[in-house]
């Protein structure tokens, strides 16, 4: 046995010594981003961007609906146009995050991220380590479209500038109305079957409507299988109901420049009471907390759902012609006894971290010129629909997407990387609103008329310092979990609402004041920038 230990030790030593021979790769000179003189290969305006072809490594997330990126019309045309060729590394969505982290950690990161889904921690960590290069000077010199856009939209600029004053990643900006709020809908056929013509305006009206749906057999199958109120998840359902009680979120929100934590506000208590009534009267989908989107949709397609919160009726109900969406009205923004002012939560129009340049990139100027194209209407539309569209009329008021196969989005996913992935671009509302798309037009109209006048952002996109972020991670994990657990318990009646004071005290013990002050500090910084 002693002999074997010695042999084993020898082996281990051998292995260790082999390991410790450190290699000093990665010391190759990197192109410095702040070089002032124009690189000789670069054209400052127009196309192609470089006089000779250059090749860059690109990393991006392949959405499930995408075809292979190297075969996309979008990238092939862009290469012809700009003289920039890409070597693609496009891990699929479910493995992307792991691959991205591995790339950073092992030093094998690409020249640029496009559709890169970088989170704020990536931007801050790798930005401060110098792996991602600051972009603001490049924007100033080489990105006229983006520069103009940021000047016109200081809010966007504030939301992409990190705490050290640098911009490390570029955003996707989407202000298409229908994408800005998650809307509640009412099954219009059920309304017609029950001869109801006035839509609810308060929470009490809604209660009455749901009761009618429960008792009146609105789907006319003789069975009591109706689910008056449902949604794919609580996240959706909360939006209209919290709003009725004057709250925009079930976490942090801004009220007159002051941060409040909604779940300890008294109006939140009223919300819980109301939801508990809905549950007790069997008006609420009992599977709300457990169902998948597919299970939810299956109920909708079987005509069992009355009021629901989802992007569009035709995605839930059994509607084959999208024009029939118009038969199903949106549930108006509600008020309640404790809240007479109409409010509704507004989704953020900005998605951060879609594009970044790393220090390995030898052509940051050309890369910036390349991406700037997508911040122009022409480039943005090209990334959205390629050239697969045509005007429907001579006046160019409407266009339609031309596709092969049976599904528009599937085809789009084969030619451009836009479907299912936020890209560095600003959506061109002007052009997109002219698409001949009946459901889209209806959704935009409803959103603009009924929701946008009341819509507000709960909390703007901000950056936290590393210290703040560390503290927040801990606080958020505890508090959010507790709040959501208790929400379910209050709604299901497992915890009586008389326990409210204990609940608030527990949250305060968990350090909610710390949390509020961190958000307040970040918000004040954001505001002053």
């Amino acid at each position, binding site marked *: 046995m002693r002999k*074997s230990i010695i*042999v084993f030790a020898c082996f281990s030593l051998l292995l260790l010594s082999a390991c410790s021979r450190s290699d000093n790769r990665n010391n190759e000179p990197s192109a410095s981003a702040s070089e002032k003189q124009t690189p000789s290969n670069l054209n400052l305006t127009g196309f192609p961007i470089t006089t000779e072809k250059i090749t860059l490594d690109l990393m991006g997330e392949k959405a499930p609906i995408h075809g292979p990126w190297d075969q996309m019309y979008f990238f092939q045309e862009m290469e012809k146009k700009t003289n920039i060729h890409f070597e693609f590394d496009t891990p699929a*969505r479910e493995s992307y995050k792991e*691959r991205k982290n591995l790339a950073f950690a092992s030093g094998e990161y690409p020249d640029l991220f496009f559709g890169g889904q970088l989170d704020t921690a990536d931007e801050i960590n790798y930005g401060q380590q110098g792996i991602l290069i600051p972009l603001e000077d490049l924007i100033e010199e080489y990105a006229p479209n983006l520069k103009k856009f940021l000047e016109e939209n200081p809010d966007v600029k504030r939301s992409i500038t990190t705490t050290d004053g640098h911009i490390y990643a570029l955003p996707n900006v989407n202000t298409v109305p229908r994408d800005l709020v998650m809307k509640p809908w009412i099954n219009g056929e059920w309304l017609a079957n029950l001869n109801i013509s006035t839509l609810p305006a308060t929470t009490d009206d809604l209660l009455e409507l749901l009761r009618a749906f429960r008792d009146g057999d609105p789907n006319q199958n003789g069975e009591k299988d109706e689910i008056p109120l449902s949604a794919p998840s609580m996240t959706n359902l909360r939006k209209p109901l919290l709003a009725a009680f004057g709250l925009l979120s079930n976490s942090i929100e801004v009220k007159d420049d002051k941060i409040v934590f909604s779940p300890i506000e008294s109006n939140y208590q009223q919300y819980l009471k109301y939801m508990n009534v809905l549950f007790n009267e069997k008006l609420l989908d009992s599977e709300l907390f457990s169902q998948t989107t*597919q299970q939810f949709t299956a109920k909708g397609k079987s005509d069992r759902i009355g009021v629901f919160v989802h992007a569009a009726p035709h995605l839930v109900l059994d509607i084959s012609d999208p024009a029939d969406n118009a038969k199903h009205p949106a549930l108006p923004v509600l008020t309640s006894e404790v809240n007479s002012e109409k409010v509704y939560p507004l989704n953020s129009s900005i998605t951060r971290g879609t594009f970044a340049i790393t220090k390995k990139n030898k052509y940051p100027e050309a890369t910036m010129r390349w991406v700037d194209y997508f911040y122009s209407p022409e480039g943005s539309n090209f990334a959205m629909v390629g050239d697969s569209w045509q005007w429907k009329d001579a006046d160019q008021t409407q266009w339609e997407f031309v596709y092969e196969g049976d*599904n528009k989005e599937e085809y789009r996913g084969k030619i451009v990387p836009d479907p299912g992935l936020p890209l560095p671009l600003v*959506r061109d509302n002007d052009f997109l609103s002219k698409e001949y798309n009946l459901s889209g037009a209806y959704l935009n109209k409803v959103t603009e008329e009924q929701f946008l006048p009341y819509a507000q952002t709960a909390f703007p996109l901000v950056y936290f310092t590393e210290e703040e972020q560390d503290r927040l991670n801990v606080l958020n994990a505890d508090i959010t979990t507790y709040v959501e657990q208790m929400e379910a318990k209050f709604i299901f009646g497992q915890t009586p609402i008389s326990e409210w004071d204990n609940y608030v005290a527990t949250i305060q013990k968990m350090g909610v004041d710390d949390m509020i002050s961190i958000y307040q500090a970040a918000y004040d910084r954001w505001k002053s920038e």
Partner: protein
Amino acid sequence: MKESTFDRLFVYFNHLFLFLLLVSVLYPLIYVTSASISDPVAVNAGRMWLFPKEVTWEGYQRVFRDAEIWIGYKNTILYTLLGTIVNLLLTIPCAYALARKDFAGRNAITLFIVFTMFFNGGLIPTFLLVKSLHMVDTVWALVLPQAAAVMNIIVSRTFFQMTVPRELEEAAEIDGCSNLRMFVKVVLPISGPIIAVMALFYGVMHWNQYFNAMIYLKDRDIFPLQLFLREILVSSEMSAAMQTGVSDLEAMEAQARIAEIVKYSVMIVSALPLLVVYPFLQRFFVKGVLIGSLKG
């Protein structure tokens, strides 16, 4: 011989127990098969629970039309064959050598090998190693880093210790047989069961392998089937998570729909080859693994 009441009771409960076991194994198989030819809406609404409802072949049509699935299929078969051959070439001789009592330092080497079972370099160092060996984005990244599994070496070693009598080896030695020749001509012919079992173990491992492929491969032309399968299966879940904040609901919806349709048929298509091979290897299985593991 007459059975006592207790015996009969025992047999009765034994049958009952085995029957329940059979049902619990069979039910998912039947469910997936039925779901693969049912309308996904019916499946999600819970209307389909055993036999197909609202039969549709769209799932299979899509699978067979999808070029990538066939690329994946081809690659998986290649990796499974190649990988298993490499595994066997290393595992069996290694296990035999370690089984020989007259092999000097075998305890130390065993210890060293077993050590790797409990400690390894971790993901990033392993990735860097594979990268420096220029194996990233090649077949070898899936074959060489796991060319031998410690557990399987130990099982095979025990098998050789138990089934190859020392006397047989001595007899061959007296006749002037070399070690290599003894291994090839004497030991291998009586080791059929363990080779079959190892081939099965390794084969299944390669067939189901996705993680290494996910980490090391970039080129979609060399992706194994499991990666494509995973993309399809996970996409239906992800779309639910991404519902708020992101636009493109129609894109999400379209991809979720495809995933729902294809999900079960892809499962069937990818599991079928193993299901077919299994019964033929099963008879070796009992022999090989029992001898190899339990008596050790």
